[in-house]
């Protein structure tokens, strides 16, 4: 049952099958999470920079009850041109082992290579650096674009907990 759902998903969104792209990045965001909203300009910047280099991007909204129209509106409001998808049953969440928004998951040829924070700007809830000092997602993407395949690793992202579906 689970495998079937994922198979359907992979056809629909193309995240697990390789279509010649170097990698796929899932960006988990929530429409009402202030921290993930504050990352919108940075995520869009990464998209503009790395999508022409062969990296696929997808915004994933894992919040229960969000409508397609509300998602599109939010994405427009925050200036996203990254394609977006609802994840009402947390299939993407499960596949990426995502825990909070904002969080990034990088797949290379369908295999999870990185999951965690975009950068280290937020140290804790309410505790942010003026400027990030580590840029984990960008480092990952730039390594992939230069032909390396980094081993799987993960970091802890700070943000809004992806709520369990019960």
């Amino acid at each position: 049952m689970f495998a079937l759902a994922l198979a359907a998903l992979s056809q629909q969104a193309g995240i697990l099958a390789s279509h010649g792209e170097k990698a796929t990045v899932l960006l988990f965001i929530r429409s009402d999470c202030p921290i993930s909203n504050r990352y919108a300009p940075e995520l869009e910047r990464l998209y503009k920079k790395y999508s022409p280099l062969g990296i696929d991007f997808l915004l994933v909204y894992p919040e229960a009850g969000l409508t397609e129209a509300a998602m599109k509106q939010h994405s427009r409001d925050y200036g996203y041109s990254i394609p977006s998808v609802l994840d009402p049953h947390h299939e993407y969440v499960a596949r990426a082992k995502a825990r909070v928004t904002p969080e990034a998951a990088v797949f290379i040829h369908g295999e999870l290579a990185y999951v965690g924070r975009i950068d280290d700007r937020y140290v804790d809830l309410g505790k942010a650096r003026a400027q990030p000092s580590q840029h984990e997602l960008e480092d990952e993407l730039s390594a992939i674009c230069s032909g390396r395949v980094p081993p799987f690793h993960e970091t802890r992202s700070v943000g809004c907990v992806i709520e369990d579906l019960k």
Partner: protein
Amino acid sequence: MKCAWLALLSLRLPGPPVTFDKDIAPITYQYCAPCHHAGEVAPFPLLTYRDVRSHAAQIIAVTQRRYMPPWPPEPGYGDFAGERRLTEAQLRLIADWVKQGMPEGKPSDLPPNPHFTAGWQMGAPDLIVKMPQPYTVPAAGGDVFRNFVIPVDLKETKYVRAVELRPGNTGVVHHANIVVDRTRRLRQRDGEDGQSGFPGMDVTTEGSPDVFDPDSHFLFWKPGSVLEPEPEGMSWRLDPGTDLILNLHLQPKGKPELIQPTIGFYFSSRPPTLFPMLLQLEHDGALDIPPGDRNFQVTDELKLPVAVDVLAIYPHAHYVGKQIEAWATLPDGTRRWLIKINDWDINWQAVYTYRHPVPLPAGATLAMRITYDNSSANPRNPSNPPIRVHGGDRSIDEMGHVWLQVLPKKESHEDPRLLLQEALMRRRLEKYPGDFLAHYNLGALCQFRGDTRGAITYYQQALQVQPQNATARNSLAAAFMTENRLGDAIPELQEALRIDPAYLNARYNLARALAANGNPDEAAREYAEFLKQKTDDPDAQAGLGTVLLAEHRYDEALPHFREAARLKPDDADIQTNLGALLAMRGDLIGATQAFENALRINPDHQTARANLARARASLAAQRDAAKPN
């Protein structure tokens, strides 16, 4: 084996059933919903069962770490009104509820829905002012600290009992301070960097030069603020010709946001009868924090010359600040804590009002201690790698302030606020021996008390520090004039006007000094210059009239007295001089009326009485002469 089994059993024992309606709603209604409801600044509503359930894991995460509800003061170090701190029992209740699967419960258990007023919290304000130009908060980047000038158009002085800020429906305004600029000096900085307003985390204004009425109210706004009118008798003065400076902390939220806050005033019909005062503990001059220093401390203290009730406290530091403590040491050595914040976060800075005023006797010493972490281990450090940090109003600078709003008790004939001001300024001189402001203010205090010699000494010391300060030159000249040292006053006033040709107060004093010194032509010129800029000043009109009168230029003097009498109908001297001029022109009826007016205002006005008698006699003589024989 048996023990282990029992332990397992106890782990599995469910706690008492916890439901939203019975147990959780009373907590979320009181602690979450005031900010988390539609139209408020928090990012999502937490009002209904569905709202709370859909954020349950997040609620656990933020409440357990005490990130929410935001309440930085440590318990037991000051008892504050509107405390938003969850008890350990409440935290356990929330955790148990989530563990039990978040049951909703019985609707009959649900407390009444909290009532939130949309729009102005106290109904339509008596006066609404709006930021003249909107400002766009960019989508990305660091926090923005900006000041906006908002002119207030009033015809007469009003007394304010409440102020409400409506930041606009966005959530980018993190907190706000409203500063009253009675001198309208700060508007010169508006637009200095090509955008509306001017940058800076903190603003200070000069008091009005003529009245000792220090700003004594915190006009602070933070999300979720409940609008509290000033206590009875504690309204504050808002004069015509005032600017408000709106000091905003703005946080980019991922998309550009246009803001144009409005401020509503609620007036009181009664002037204040209670006069609080703001006392500042600070030592920014000692802020010289080496990079890497994790434990740099700044302290200050102030011995109270009078007994006070402490009403509220406002601690303030920037990003390198780590811990803020303030307390009072009573004359018997007892320590009374006023506040303690262990994990200072400028994002949640606030004014804290004591649930009950904290009484402190004369002789108690207020103290503050602020600890800074300027290492890279402090993630909030705005500089990476850390740099040497000094006092200043940029976000890479630091501050260390504790402001206290106190209500001083009157225990002698003297205004206790003056005694407090004196103590503050003397303390300031200890901290900053070459300080302009302390010398200047001590001079003003001496002058206010009639100690002109003392005032002259302090003003001269202030001018040694800031020779180009026109205000101090003018005050020194005013002190000289009180001593009748006109020859000393005139060059000071001329210098003040050279520094600031638009300084009306100095121009008026110069005209007076020249007139008193026997230079009527020059005096008349200065009065005329003054009146070009401020036609409706009755004292200047009368002053110019008096100079012309002394020069026997009666026809020129008359219109100025007429104007002065119109602007200030309750001045017996003006009426008397007007009457005299009218009499000289032969208008005995008009003259009689003016003298009668003067005597109505001041029945003991001897000149008016004598003039009236002469005018009546002349009138009688005219009537006699006009009678046919």
